[in-house]
């Protein structure tokens, strides 16, 4: 399936910004189940140069600075991504916790090292107060990491309220856990904390999800959003993704942008601006299915 993603972030400042330095992580990466066919990154006002490179996770990062005075800044990323249509890989429910642990102890490939990193607490993922009962319950119910992750996904989906008004970028996993509410990012952080507490290597995944309008209705422009979920590692099997916001294993409707230990490794846009006063930020995302249509680099659809 080919998906076109347009991700626009618009910053409007009360005053004039004299200088800004920014880092982006919004270009979809290649994975074993998707390929980024093209990407166009546009910034207005145009920086002298947009630097891009790959970090050690394999994510594409970009850096730019704007040295002219401006009172708004628009970052637009348009990508065409082909996602694999094959059926979802079977979850390795037969591999017990102990077997997973013993296997990992003997493996030292790149993914195994990343898994070790994803067992440790990280900036946004620290042990939650009061999570012990849930961890014990799930360990009791399940024999395998895969089962644990699947059950955890469902528990979060059932027990947490999706509440966009609740979260800010600084919402901690603990706060979301205590209030039992939040957005995709919070659910992913809560899940990661519980998985790591149970000794299951788990990473944070950022990306997009194609949404379909109710039958008979036209899809609204900019109605999609950037998304986040989690992924667990099973030695020798690889990584398996789970989306606790939708209680669903990500399929070809999902596009992966980047992964890391938590949000901090893959924040879509971070930066420092000098001056400007208060900021208003508008984010709009469109994910559209395309079949055989022609695309040019700017991402404009050719009729």
């Amino acid at each position: 399936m080919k998906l076109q993603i347009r991700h626009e972030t618009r910053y409007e400042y009360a005053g004039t910004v004299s200088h800004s330095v920014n880092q982006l992580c919004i270009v979809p990466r290649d994975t074993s189940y998707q390929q980024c066919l093209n990407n166009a990154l546009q910034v207005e006002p145009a920086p002298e140069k947009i630097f891009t490179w790959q970090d050690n996770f394999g994510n594409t990062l970009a850096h730019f600075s704007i040295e002219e005075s401006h009172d708004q800044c628009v970052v637009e990323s348009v990508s065409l991504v082909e996602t694999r249509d094959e059926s979802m890989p079977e979850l390795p429910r037969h591999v017990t916790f102990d077997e997973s642990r013993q296997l990992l102890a003997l493996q030292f490939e790149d993914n195994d090292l990343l898994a070790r990193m994803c067992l440790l607490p990280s900036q946004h993922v620290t042990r939650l107060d009061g999570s012990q009962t849930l961890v014990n319950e799930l360990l009791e119910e399940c024999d395998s990491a895969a089962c644990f992750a699947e059950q955890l996904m469902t528990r979060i989906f059932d027990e947490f309220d999706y509440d966009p008004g609740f979260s800010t970028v600084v919402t901690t996993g603990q706060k979301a856990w205590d209030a039992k509410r939040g957005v995709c990012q919070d659910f992913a952080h809560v899940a990661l904390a519980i998985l790591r507490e149970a000794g299951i290597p788990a990473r944070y995944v950022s990306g997009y999800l194609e949404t379909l309008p109710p039958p008979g209705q036209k899809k609204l422009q900019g109605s999609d959003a950037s998304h986040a979920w989690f992924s667990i590692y099973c030695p020798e099997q690889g990584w398996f993704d789970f989306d606790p916001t939708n209680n669903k294993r990500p399929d070809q409707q999902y596009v992966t942008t980047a992964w890391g230990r938590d949000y901090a490794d893959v924040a879509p846009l971070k930066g420092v601006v000098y001056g400007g006063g208060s900021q208003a930020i508008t984010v709009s995302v469109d994910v559209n299915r395309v079949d055989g249509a022609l695309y040019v680099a700017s991402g404009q659809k050719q009729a």
Partner: protein
Amino acid sequence: MTTSSEVSSDFNESTDADGNWHEAWSPVLSALTNFSPEQISLCQQDLQRRYRENGLAFGSGIWRHAGQRPWQLDLMPQIMGVDDWQVLENGLQQRARLKAALLKDLYGKQRVLHEAIVPAQAVYAHQGFVEAAVGIPVFDSMPLYSSDVSRSPSGAWYVADDVCQAPHGLGYALENRLILSGTLGGLYRNLRIRRVADYFKHLRALLFNQVDSNARCVILGYGASHKYHFEQAYLSKYLGYTLVQLNDLTVRGKYVWLKTVDGLQQVDVIFRFVQDDDLDPLVGTGNNTQGVPGLLHSAREGGVVVVNPFGVSAVENPAFNVWMPQLCSFLLGEELQLLGTPTYWLGDDDQCNMLESRFKELLVRNINTQSELQDPALLSKKDFDALMASIKEQPQQYIAQERLCRSMAPSIVDNKLETRQLTMRIYLMDDADSYRAMPGGLGLLDNQMGGARTKIGDMVSSKDVWVASDSSVPYETLMPKNRSAAAFKIVDGELPSSVAESLFWLGRYAERVESTARVLDGVCLHLRADERFQDEVSSRHSLAALLKSTTEVTGTRPGFFGAGAANTLAEPDEELLRLLSDPEKAGSIPHTLESLSYSAATVRDRLSPDVLRVISSLEEHHNSFLTLSQQSTTLDGGQLNNTIAKLNDLLISLAAFSGLAIENMTQGDGWRFLQIGKRIERTSQTNDILSTVFSEYYDNSFALEDLLGVLCSDMTYRSRYRTLIDPALVLNLLVIDESNPRSLGFQLKNLESAIQLLPGRRKADYSEPALRSAAEGLARIRLLDPVELMEHTDGVGDTLNQFFGALHKLPDDIADALTAQYFTHTDPPNMLCSGFNLPIDPAVAR
């Protein structure tokens, strides 16, 4: 005081088991033990004088604030025999090569992880490991390496800590050598002791060799409030590099730029004393918002070289001690020469379980703290349980170490020979295939028992380390030839905006202290001069004029103004004593002296040793004013004389400062900002005093006489006019006369010409605001006709008020215009964060 009997070790640095002196030590020991108590005492005083003069202190540059104390240097050096040093040097060279190879591997192929030489989690659990720097070649070199070493009871050296980010203490080590070799001059010259100056020459070359010639290298520090500021300023002066702070730098495109009064200037090499975490807010490990955004990007793109590179603290991780022998054979193919403290990584379950029963025998450390060892045996039950709980939760973050007693070194404490536990910090730098060690180091003495160590800031005293040579030592002065050039001038061409601003404020504060002291001196003299009290009303009025001037000069309204003025004017002692001695009162002498000291500390790398000596002496003045209010609550008799004496002493030091600033500083841009600050402040103060006195008391000849005294123009007046006090003539001398350095005309004329010489002023007209204001003031003064003015039979006061009122705002206008043009190059920073706005640390957003 703790005596040497409280801690002991089997190993004494200077003696063998039978108590006989080691050969290398005997010349020093016999010389120093043969000194009479008087000689020792003289030497101690000499040391003290030398380090006070150098302003040597550990802690922030502000006297009253916690943390700062004079540097302690032991008169007894640590002596390293030729063979002993050789073993240590070889071992440290190997350790440096090993750490460098480890760094290269961790930020490169990570073979040590893939081949399981080191557990990956031990690396990942350390906050210094920067995932974002992996795979980028510029982050894998380690030009500088320092190490804390101690000697175990067996006599073998071992490494207690690796210091990889910046060579903290290097400046102190150098300063210790300069001071001790001066105090023990004869002894030092007669012994064959290896010199350390050579190391600094190589250090300069190393920094410059990072890039092509003509590189601009800066030393990056945290600023005057930081505990290591002294040594950063010292090194910057010694090496001849500009000392900058984080917000002096900005990244544009792929390059780093220094904000100077002359615009942005590109920086090629950053010799940094700032920790990894604080370098770049876009890469921080936490919510740290200080730093230079984009610095890591610039380094990655080859726009700048950071020494040591970002991410290097990963190899400071003490957990590596567990696997050093394996790492050494894996990475270097060699056998490890120098051991570290026996260490256990608690992230290993087996290791952790095995040690559980032994915890109280060991020392425990979180790998993300700098050299802080916790002693479980000394912890309360509650703290011990808390520690065990954190270990259980995040065992990867903890190591346990065996307790190792360190050797004892002889030390001279209060004229007596005692012994102290010794740690040495040794400095090495990259030198082709190996590392070059500085033949010397920073000896750190402590009394800590049980193998725990003190932090560098908490030690009892420091020691110079003398390394013996078996061949003759070429006579070499420690002062490089360029010292006089570097130390006595303001480096033109790259005057950072923040430094210009500090120099400007240094000038203002120096003048503010002076005018405060002069006006208070005037008050005290008036109070003492009772012979004039024949005309009580005039005298009372002239005192009121002085007291009100005092309030204006110190900016402490209401003071002698307002509703309570009748009382305070009648009983001025309490308010005066507060102005003289209350450090909490803004505008008081001690308070302004502290501000002066702070500004001086910020730019100490740009002040000559003479000026620094004067600045140091201000601390004594500061302390002596503090004692005034303890002695008496009134200002009379002895107290009055005492105060006048203190004020006069202070004025002499300030005169020395001003004189040296004229005679001893290159008259470049920095000097100009200092002078402009001084002139602006004097304009403002003089105008306030004149306006206070003339508005109400222009017909009171006592008041005018006091005024002439306070503005140092009484002699000129008498010699020039040989007449009774005439207000028109006083105005002429104090306002119009451009040859009188105390007059308003003189200030504005000099301001005008200094502003015209500032960088970036290419226009020939008066359109720029600072220049315009100065010219406006000067014109008003030149057009004033005092005789005509005084003939206004009524409303003289009002006319004068108008005149001084028009000048009142000028100094602030000029200061604001200069600030806008030269000092603030940036607007306050804000964090942008994917749709959310986080305020940045206000301390940085100045």
